[in-house]
């Protein structure tokens, strides 16, 4: 992952440092060169003056050995060399100069600057050289360098700070955009508000909104499709059911008709159930852009709403259906949860033999969540099948009448609510216990 901030910083701070270094070098040259020239001029003048004195007074004007202090904290040496480089007078430590001019050398382990002046000595050309230590120059130079380093260092730091701040400031709209995105619910497909967004981010926001729009349109089309399927399937099924019931009541005396109508009504019920399950499976689809709204509700009230339907189903099989409903507050989607309750209870009623017993319980769990428990005294579910029963289209045996979707729906809805689904066995005797533990 590359970082805009790092890129900007790299491309701003690097050049700033290079420019500052260049500026420092230039400043150094500009400050140091005139000083150097002034020093050299002084040295050349000293050499010229001394040459005049030697011409007038003879070699005695040259003091033997280094003059420890010439008044400016420097040590000086002087020497007179003949044209052939032979030392005529003065300090033997000085190298013979190649001619008049200025050059650098080392003398007694210390760097010196030497000025040489030409003169006639006893009719032959000779060179007078004056060597002087460069202590003052070194001081001046180091003063210049110190000031420059300090100045440029402070400048560079100030610039880097400014750049850092500006980059952060420039990237602030991105941070705001991110904050807006973070603040959205996972299913919020409303377009992003581009108020206060800089012009440079507008294309990004537009592209993002276009994407959201397409997703929203897709989700709406999916809802629309689902609603149409629901209407197109459920209405004729409802009509068929009523017609068959009416026919069955009319032909209650004719054994053959009764048998046939019973089969048809059974098939009709299965189709209704399959339709409802496919629709609720689609609604609970985890990767669907489900607008699941988790609102506070009481599971006990939700179960109570469905009781009528359960009671009729249980009565048909002579199953003793009981309830232990205590207040079970939780955050959930009421339609999805009703599907969950319906499918769990339906599953229990379906797999419990006639004359059996099913108990639906809910309440607040000790650790703060809520629980739903559906317990039956049917055959139970073998341990090796317990992980598989929640898969789609898995049935325990070929004879069973379910679609194999009910528990998959239960699992999907439990997942959507962050609930834990546990399948256990009854405390005494046989039977299955499904527990949904809500956070």
């Amino acid at each position, binding site marked *: 992952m590359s970082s805009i901030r790092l890129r900007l910083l790299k491309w701003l701070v690097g050049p700033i440092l290079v420019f500052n270094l260049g500026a420092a070098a230039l400043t150094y040259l500009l400050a140091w060169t005139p000083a150097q020239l002034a020093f050299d001029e002084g040295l050349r003048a000293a050499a010229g003056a001394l040459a005049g004195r030697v011409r007038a007074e003879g070699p005695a004007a040259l003091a033997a050995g280094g003059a420890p202090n010439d008044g400016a904290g420097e040590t000086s040496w002087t020497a007179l060399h003949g044209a052939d480089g032979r030392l005529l007078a003065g300090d033997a430590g000085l190298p013979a100069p190649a001619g008049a001019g200025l050059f650098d050398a080392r003398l007694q382990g210390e760097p010196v600057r030497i000025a040489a002046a030409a003169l006639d000595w006893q009719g032959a050309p000779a060179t007078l050289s004056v060597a002087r230590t460069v202590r003052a120059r070194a001081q001046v130079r180091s003063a210049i360098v110190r000031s420059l380093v300090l100045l440029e260092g402070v400048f560079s730091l100030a610039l880097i700070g400014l750049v850092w701040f500006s980059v952060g400031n420039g990237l602030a709209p991105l941070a705001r955009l991110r904050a807006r995105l973070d603040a959205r619910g996972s299913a919020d497909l409303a377009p992003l508000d581009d108020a206060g967004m800089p012009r440079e981010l507008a294309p990004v926001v537009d592209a993002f909104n276009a994407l959201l729009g397409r997703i929203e349109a897709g989700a709406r089309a999916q809802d629309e499709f689902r609603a149409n399927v629901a*209407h197109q399937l459920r209405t*004729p099924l409802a009509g068929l059911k009523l017609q068959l019931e009416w026919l069955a009541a009319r032909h209650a005396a004719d054994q053959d008709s009764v048998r046939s109508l019973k089969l048809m009504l059974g098939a009709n019920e299965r189709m209704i159930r399959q339709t409802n399950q496919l629709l609720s499976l689609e609604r609970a689809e985890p990767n669907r852009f489900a607008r699941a709204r988790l609102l506070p509700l009481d599971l006990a009230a939700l179960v109570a709403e469905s009781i009528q339907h359960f009671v009729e189903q249980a009565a*048909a099989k002579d199953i003793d259906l009981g309830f232990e409903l205590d207040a079970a507050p939780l955050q959930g989607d009421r339609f999805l949860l009703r599907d969950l309750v319906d499918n769990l209870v339906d599953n229990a009623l379906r797999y419990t033999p006639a004359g059996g017993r099913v108990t639906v319980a809910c309440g607040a769990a000790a650790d703060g969540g809520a629980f739903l428990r559906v317990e039956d005294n049917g055959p139970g579910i073998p341990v090796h099948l317990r992980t598989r029963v929640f898969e789609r289209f898995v049935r325990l045996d070929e004879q069973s009448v379910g679609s194999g979707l009910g528990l998959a729906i239960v699992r999907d809805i439990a997942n959507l609510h962050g609930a834990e689904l546990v399948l256990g066995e009854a405390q005494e005797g046989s039977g299955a216990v499904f527990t949904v533990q809500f956070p």
Partner: protein
Amino acid sequence: MPHNVRQSYFPISSRMHILLVEDDAVLADGLTRTLQAQGMQVEIARDGLQADALLQRTPPMVAVLDIGLPGIDGFEVVRRLRARGAATPVLLLTARDAVEDRVRGLETGADDYLVKPFATPELVARIRALARRNAPKSAVLALGNIVLDSSARRARVGERPLELSVREWAVLEYLLQHAGRVVSKQQIVDAIAPWGEDLTLNAVEVYVSRLRLKLDGAGVSLRTIRGFGYLLEAGA
């Protein structure tokens, strides 16, 4: 048969006039026959505008209204009905549970709703409940062989007079009013002791068990829903 379609627990005083609005011919026909078998008088409309006109001309006791109608939909029919200030009870039928929110939100002004396909006894029970809400308080309730006459304060099973305490009367009356529907013990307590009188759920159980003895041979079944409540239905 999953249930008996020929139950007869309607007030004997009048034939219930129902307006049924459903565009699906098979379902409309089935509903008509089923409701007629319950002694109801059924008038049919095929679309929203026709329903709107009929609701104005001959207000029914209950309107059973499909939501997905040609012309104007069920929501709009209810909206117009309520805009006219009519209090006609409305039961909406829907095939789309996606609209449950809107229906439930009562923003439509409907009184109840059912998702297709529905259990027939449930439909009948809900229509009766809505009819009772607006009807002049019916003095006589009947189910199976039970006849409960509130104005004369007399109850009988067939020809046998039924001696009931005040509380037993109240419980039986509530159960008869909600015949075909599961009622919770708490609902009974709330209905017969509405001002927080000291009535426990256990007391309700006692009254119901006494009623059960007295209703022997009344041609009704009074089923106990363990841990919840009761269901009174016609049929032994």
